[in-house]
């Protein structure tokens, strides 16, 4: 459609909003209430413009012509129109520059400001505030409002993580709409009316995994991140755009640091991945970086004590020790959120030392690389049938939000010259959701089931049987046996309906995560199911770079060289990066027998207590490198200016160690690692764009390990994925205050039987490791099983806990 904005003519797709036409033409109108990816509502009335369009004669269909010029006559709307809620029409004329329009915009700025406290100097939004900018650009500069302003609560804690200043609120309704439209958790609304309107909640807190985003979208300083309250002004922060390493989604984040400290994390826009939303675990989970007990210098054990030394001395010590160790007796293990560059470095080191004992952890028993058609986030958002096995809201929350996009049935908007459309007119407030397209299966009730048309709780640990039964339904006409019906967890008709829905869908996606990956048989079954119903698959690996590390082959050369074997006496010497296996006392015993234990970690822990050499590690916010998210997209990781002392990532470790060994290894720097990766993957990773690169993924991993089938089994504790990383929660006091401690969830009946009540702190030996947790009683948990967040050392799966070891701690820490 042809549209004319002031003097610029341009061609736009029908359905575009007038405000987007204005921006696409390179002009500007102020707006507060519109927000990309959310419904336009026309509440702030800032984007007023004079809008007109030619008319067709009803009878003839001819354009009505202006008698003087002979051109189609423009009929202007009688009043100024809010461009955000006006769709463009053929030949529409939009005027944003006339005195009338400017006057009205000026008037709206004045109205908006009369009750705004103008306490910009003490406001954390100051300097990055839409209202400040717009008032400066469009306001008259002086207020004529000579009365007392509205006084309301200045510091209302909406939750532990978010504060609300009701005086600053300009009632744009972005936050209210956000909760209803994006995560679908209606927790905020306007209360009172007219000039007394304010934002509030019905109950306590904000029960959602995605609350932090409202601080990003608030156009003023009304909703603020409480963790960074008064920590710095916006112009003082160093903004680093990078990729979040908290989960496998590869969500884009902006790390704001000041004086060597991460003060806050904001969501960045990556239209094809996380849009502009991130979960609270990613946003607020950074506090550990600055923890008191961070290791900042290399340490070497001298006479039983760890003593600070230089990197050269530490690596020299390692080199001397390595000389006495035969090939194949050294093990190298990375944490699965290590970058590809670190993976290359580890591989180069392993190759140089001629050992096959190389692994990353946590590495599920089954491959995280999708087989068959891999689904992208955009496939998920446009899917017409989705089958989820697992708890996506905790495992990879970005997937949860993209599934909710699909429920709205609105495909991702096409990009315009100015980026994502500001007002997508297809989105409406309180849109009906197509819950019928979503089926969620998990061993216990998960949050996404609230939004699903069909939810299934299959027996705990029964993934293989559950999926095999579905495969049988999809492929064989036979009736199911009694056991298979039991494994299905739902009536057979329901199962058939699910299969039919998936098979008939144009764009079906099956999403599965750690529960399925814990068993190769279950994984094979889900792949078979996907083939049978012609669905694409999305695999949620356990960590940020599980996909990448497996793809480049940071894997043992033989099953007997896996991490689990290494730490149990398989290796004589170990280099562990980011891992703490010694939490398990039996492993700690085995580690004591090692000739050399090098631990590359951020914090002192049980394993560093046994180590000969401790090397300071960079956190995910300090690294430079590349990760591969669950779509197979290469995403850049960039270092924020954080004071990590002498910490280095694994490429740094390999550089120092290589120097000590007198070799120049691949991966001694990110540059050399990228060169090596270019050889390996035929992908140039230098200067990756912000939105990442979807290179053609190699379908087969470079190294594949055959895993012995050892089906688990039975147990009484199900280790589950968690949005909040349990290994760091004790060092994230604010996140802990908001989400509580590591939670041991159990059914009320079990709790009664074990004489436990919610909020009690307990210690329990789980699969050999002593875990501390706070009891949470919930009916969503099946009877006879306890849920506990998985850690890198204790990956998702069913394990046994020795209930005899259950000890109640003195409850100094009362969990709210």
């Amino acid at each position: 459609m042809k549209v004319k904005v002031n003097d610029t003519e341009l061609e736009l797709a029908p359905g575009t909003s007038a405000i987007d036409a204005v921006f696409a033409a390179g002009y500007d109108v102020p707006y507060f209430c519109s927000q990309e990816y959310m419904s336009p509502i026309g509440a702030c009335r800032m984007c007023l413009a004079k809008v007109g369009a030619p008319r067709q004669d009803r009878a003839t269909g001819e354009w009505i012509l202006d008698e003087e010029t002979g051109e189609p006559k423009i009929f202007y709307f009688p009043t100024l129109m809010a461009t955000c809620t006006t769709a463009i029409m053929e030949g529409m004329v939009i005027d944003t520059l006339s005195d009338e329009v400017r006057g009205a915009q000026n008037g709206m700025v004045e109205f908006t400001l009369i009750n705004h406290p103008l306490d910009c100097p003490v406001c954390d939004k100051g300097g990055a505030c839409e209202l400040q900018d717009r008032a400066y650009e469009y306001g008259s500069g002086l207020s004529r409002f000579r009365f007392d302003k509205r006084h309301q609560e200045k510091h209302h804690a909406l939750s532990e993580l978010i504060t609300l200043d009701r005086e600053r609120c300009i009632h744009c309704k972005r936050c209210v709409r956000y909760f209803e439209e994006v995560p679908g958790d209606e927790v905020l609304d306007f209360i009172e009316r007219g000039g007394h309107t304010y934002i509030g909640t019905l109950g306590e807190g904000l029960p959602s995994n995605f609350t932090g985003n409202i601080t990003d979208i608030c156009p003023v300083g009304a909703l603020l991140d409480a963790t960074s309250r008064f920590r710095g002004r916006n112009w003082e922060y160093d903004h680093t755009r990078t990729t979040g390493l908290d989960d496998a989604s590869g969500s884009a984040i902006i790390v704001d640091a000041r004086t060597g400290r991460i003060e806050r994390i904001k969501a960045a826009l990556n239209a094809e991945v996380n849009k502009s939303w991130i979960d609270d675990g990613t946003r607020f989970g950074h506090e550990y970086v600055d923890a008191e007990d961070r290791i900042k210098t290399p340490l070497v054990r001298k006479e039983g004590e760890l003593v600070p030394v230089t990197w050269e001395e530490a690596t020299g010590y390692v080199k001397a020790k390595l000389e006495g160790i035969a090939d194949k007796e050294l093990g190298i293990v990375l944490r699965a959120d290590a970058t590809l560059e670190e993976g290359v470095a580890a591989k180069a080191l392993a190759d140089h030392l001629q050992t096959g004992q190389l692994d990353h952890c946590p590495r599920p028993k089954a491959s995280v690389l999708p087989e068959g058609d891999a689904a992208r986030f955009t496939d998920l958002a446009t899917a017409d049938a989705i089958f989820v096995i697992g708890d996506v809201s905790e495992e990879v929350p970005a997937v949860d939000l993209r599934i909710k996009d699909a429920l709205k049935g609105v495909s991702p908007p096409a990009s315009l010259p100015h980026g994502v459309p500001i007002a997508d007119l297809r989105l409406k407030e309180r849109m009906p959701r197509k819950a019928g397209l979503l089926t969620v299966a998990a061993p216990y009730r998960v949050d996404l089931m609230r939004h699903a048309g069909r939810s299934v709780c299959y027996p705990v640990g029964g993934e293989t049987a559950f999926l095999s039964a579905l495969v049988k339904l999809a492929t064989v006409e036979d009736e199911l046996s009694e056991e298979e019906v039991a494994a299905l967890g739902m009536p057979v008709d329901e199962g058939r309906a699910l299969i039919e829905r998936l098979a008939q869908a144009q764009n079906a996606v099956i999403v599965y995560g750690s529960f399925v990956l814990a068993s190769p048989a279950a994984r094979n079954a889900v792949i078979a199911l996907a083939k049978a119903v012609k669905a694409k698959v999305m695999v949620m690996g356990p960590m940020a770079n599980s996909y990448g590390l497996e793809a480049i082959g940071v894997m043992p050369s033989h099953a007997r060289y896996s991490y689990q074997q290494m730490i149990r006496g398989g290796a004589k010497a170990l280099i562990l990066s980011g891992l703490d296996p010694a939490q398990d006392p039996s492993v700690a015993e085995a580690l004591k027998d090692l000739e050399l234990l090098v631990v590359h970690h951020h914090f002192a822990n049980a394993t560093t207590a046994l180590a000969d050499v401790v090397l300071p590690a960079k956190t995910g916010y300090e690294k430079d490198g590349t990760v591969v998210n669950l779509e197979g997209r290469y995403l850049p990781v960039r270092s924020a200016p954080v004071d990590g002392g002498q910490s280095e990532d694994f490429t740094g470790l390999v550089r120092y160690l290589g120097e000590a060994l007198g070799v120049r290894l691949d991966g001694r720097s990110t540059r050399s690692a990228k060169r090596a990766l270019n050889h390996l993957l035929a992908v140039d990773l230098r200067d990756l764009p912000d939105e990442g690169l979807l290179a053609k993924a190699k379908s087969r991993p470079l190294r594949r390990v055959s895993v012995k089938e050892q089906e688990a089994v039975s147990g009484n504790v199900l280790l589950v994925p968690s949005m909040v990383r349990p290994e760091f929660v004790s060092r994230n006091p604010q996140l802990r205050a908001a989400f509580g401690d590591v939670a041991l969830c159990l059914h009320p009946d079990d709790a009664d039987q074990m004489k436990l009540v919610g909020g009690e702190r307990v210690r329990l030996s789980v699969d050999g490791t002593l875990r501390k947790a706070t009891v949470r009683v919930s009916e969503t948990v099946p009877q006879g099983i306890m849920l506990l967040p998985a850690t890198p050392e204790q990956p998702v799966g069913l394990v046994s806990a020795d209930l005899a070891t259950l000890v109640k701690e003195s409850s100094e820490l009362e969990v709210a």
Partner: protein
Amino acid sequence: MSVLDIAKGMGVTLGHLFKRPVTVRYPEQPVDVKPRFRGRHHLLRHPSGLEKCIGCSLCAAACPAYAIYVEAAENDPDDPVSPGERYASIYEINMLRCIFCGMCEEACPTGAIVLGHEFELADFVYQDFTYGKDDMLVGVMGSKWQRREATQKGRDVRVGLSSGPRPELEGVDY
């Protein structure tokens, strides 16, 4: 040049012989600086005793020499340091960097920082040139060195100034 011209010149010299001298016997005698002289900064208080500074860091943003560092914190409502929610927990000016341009004073939304008349800031150690809140809050007189000397010698701080403070410097007394 005629003799007459020389005589004229000598006449000027002669005339000044009998006028009051311009030079001051500083440091024996205090000096009188002009009212708009910009010397060491003062952090002012409200009449209620609360600090005027709200830790907004605008002075640091305005400072062309990057001499100011501010860290803010939240007031305890029961025992506030400044009015409102925010106060400066750390307020530092590096006097070696400072060029005494007065931009911080212009940027301050509450009139908390005002450049006073003290100019005797010489000291011996680098770190002693970083003035914190304790060194600048109203009521504190003299440079760090002057105060150190006064404590050592057990006498009052002596500032080499005879002019009174500007009206903006509420509560400052030289």
